[in-house]
């Protein structure tokens, strides 16, 4: 299945060596071409990094592109993308391999487009819930009347030091049939609830993992906001609700946008959380890509799916960038 197995290995090294030589050449020529001031010499400091990024970022991206547009024999094709749109593709494949019973077993979630829609929907829900929970949190943290110490931020960072897989798994012992909540319910004489292995559990896991990434940027922006602005707004006759709508909210927009980016992107692509808390009943786009590569070994379709996801993310980033052209939303630090 490793298509490049047929290619002699010296050819592969030759390609790599060529790349490195071209880069070195460019750097050399650039440094020779007239230095116009003292600082130009220092630009060479970036060359190890440039080289590194070309080998470990640009080249891998090109490889994904290469596999997405070729078939298993290495000839150019758009078939991998066609499979994405053909909602019967997965069924047909199973039908051919295992017969009609297998195909009939598939309900939703295995078909590519459905998976993508479902992932986007889940990510959207997660982002909205995070925003609703995080905005008041950030406001309270930045509230001057409460005189919160800056240590409060640390309280939000500390949980992230624990391995996130373990933290997610810990939710299992809370939610599962014999878990803490159900033990509590039965102690109270109430019927057990099915809390695990459904959409809500996955959503909970996502919100749990990504909430801090929404809190920090909003808090950073609100904390930096000039308090006199509130006084000015109130001086000009705005009540506290109007002050919020007309002053605080618009000014905190950069933080909100950077929060949305930081929550939405990892939500679309997570594959660990649905695996654990969804128990395989749900499949998200990250899952799909992972299984294309590691379970099915179909690099070509997998690469095509990765490419589609990259394009989607670039588009949404572009839209968000439009809303916050200066990109002044505070990040984690």
């Amino acid at each position: 299945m490793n298509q490049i197995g047929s290619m002699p290995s010296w050819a592969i090294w030759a390609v790599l060596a060529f790349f490195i030589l071209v880069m070195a050449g460019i750097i050399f020529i650039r440094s020779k071409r007239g230095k116009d001031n003292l600082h130009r010499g220092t630009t060479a400091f970036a060359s190890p990094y440039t080289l590194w990024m070309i080998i470990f970022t640009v080249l891998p991206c090109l490889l994904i592109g290469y596999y997405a547009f070729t078939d298993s024999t290495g000839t150019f094709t758009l078939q991998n993308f066609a499979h994405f749109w053909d909602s019967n593709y997965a069924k047909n494949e199973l039908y051919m391999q295992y017969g009609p019973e297998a195909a009939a077993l598939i309900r939703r979630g295995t078909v590519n487009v459905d998976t993508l829609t479902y992932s986007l929907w889940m990510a959207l829900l997660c982002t909205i819930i995070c925003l609703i929970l995080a905005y008041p949190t950030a406001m309270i943290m930045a509230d001057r009347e409460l005189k919160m110490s800056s240590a409060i931020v640390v309280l939000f960072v500390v949980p992230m030091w624990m391995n996130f897989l373990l933290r997610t798994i810990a939710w299992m012992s809370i939610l599962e049939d014999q878990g803490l909540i159900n033990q509590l319910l039965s102690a109270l004489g109430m019927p057990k609830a099915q809390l695990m292995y459904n959409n809500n559990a996955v959503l909970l896991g996502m919100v749990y993992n990504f909430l801090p990434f929404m809190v920090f940027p909003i808090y950073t922006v609100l904390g930096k906001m000039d308090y006199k602005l509130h006084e000015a707004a109130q001086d000009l006759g705005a009540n506290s609700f109007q002050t919020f709508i007309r002053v605080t909210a618009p000014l905190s927009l950069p933080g909100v946008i950077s929060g949305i980016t930081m929550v939405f992107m990892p939500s679309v692509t997570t594959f660990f959380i649905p695996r654990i808390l969804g128990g395989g009943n749900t499949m998200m786009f990250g899952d799909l890509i992972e299984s294309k590569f590691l379970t099915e070994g179909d690099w070509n379709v997998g690469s095509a799916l990765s490419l589609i996801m990259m394009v989607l993310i670039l588009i949404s980033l572009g839209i968000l960038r439009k809303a916050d052209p200066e990109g002044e939303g505070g990040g984690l630090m």
Partner: protein
Amino acid sequence: MIEETHLIDLENISKEYDGTTVLANMNLYIRKREFVTLLGPSGCGKTTTLRIIGGFEYPSTGRVLFESKDITNTPPYRRRVNTVFQKYALFPHLNVYDNIAFGLKLKKLPKKEIEEKVNAMLELVNLKGYGKRGVDALSGGQQQRIAIARALVNEPEVLLLDEPLGALDLKLRKEMQLELKNMQQRLGITFIYVTHDQEEALTMSDTIVVMKDGRIQQIGDPKKIYDEPKNAFVANFIGESNILEGVMKKDELVNFAGHDFVCVDYDFEKDEPVDVVIRPEDILLVGEDAGQLIGTVKSVLFKGVHYEMMIDDGQFTWKVHSTAMQPQGSRVGLSIIPFNIHIMHKPAPIPEKEAEK
């Protein structure tokens, strides 16, 4: 005293940045112990010139000579030149003492000698006992002195100063102007000073180099630059001026504002169009019938030492400085003595694009 030998020569220096010309074929020499000021509006190339002398920029063409030796490609750390930077560029991670000692430590001087020199320098800039302080805690004026001390302690042949007083308030600026001038004369070091403040240039310099759009407009001592500006730009940039279009009738007779005036200029072509510059303080206010021109006072502003009046003669609005105030609306006569009429050739026609600026 200024010696006649050239310390620095700039030969045919040009500098281009991404296709735009910052300096165009500049030639300039600087003598030993001279206080030279590069003066001009922002973007005229004065700072670039300074940075080329300091070794921070390399000219696109041309040579920099130091005592007749080519130093065009010599790095800054091998030039006997030190710089006081705009906004000082003190090292924030070092205290005052270590900032000043920076250059001496690099020369590997003995510790004792460094200490003596730094302390002497601190005394020179009136900051004795400030050695242990952090530089961020100092006021703008103090930081400025440290920056000067840090450069001077290395005993450079030439001190380059890039708008060193720009960040200070007016009063402090005036004090520092005098202090700098004193220091320069006492230490006998060549100063090359960059500023856009004409008053500063007139106060301190032995020689002023007026620049515009990467070209030198005029070189001369302050009095010459003020009294005999070479063109309308220099006249306008140095001090305040009334600038009019005129026509040279013949030697020592010029026509402007609808009248013929006797002047002291000659060697112009007959009926050559010229620029006429008259300083506001050179216009005498006389009785209505005694004036060469008659005008109405449009506005009066009190400026402290004098009044500034705008006087309209029907063709041109004159700016006039006088210690005697004429009330707004009154009719006055204006008189100009021939010596105070400055006639200039029109600048050579320049491409339209530049003319728009």
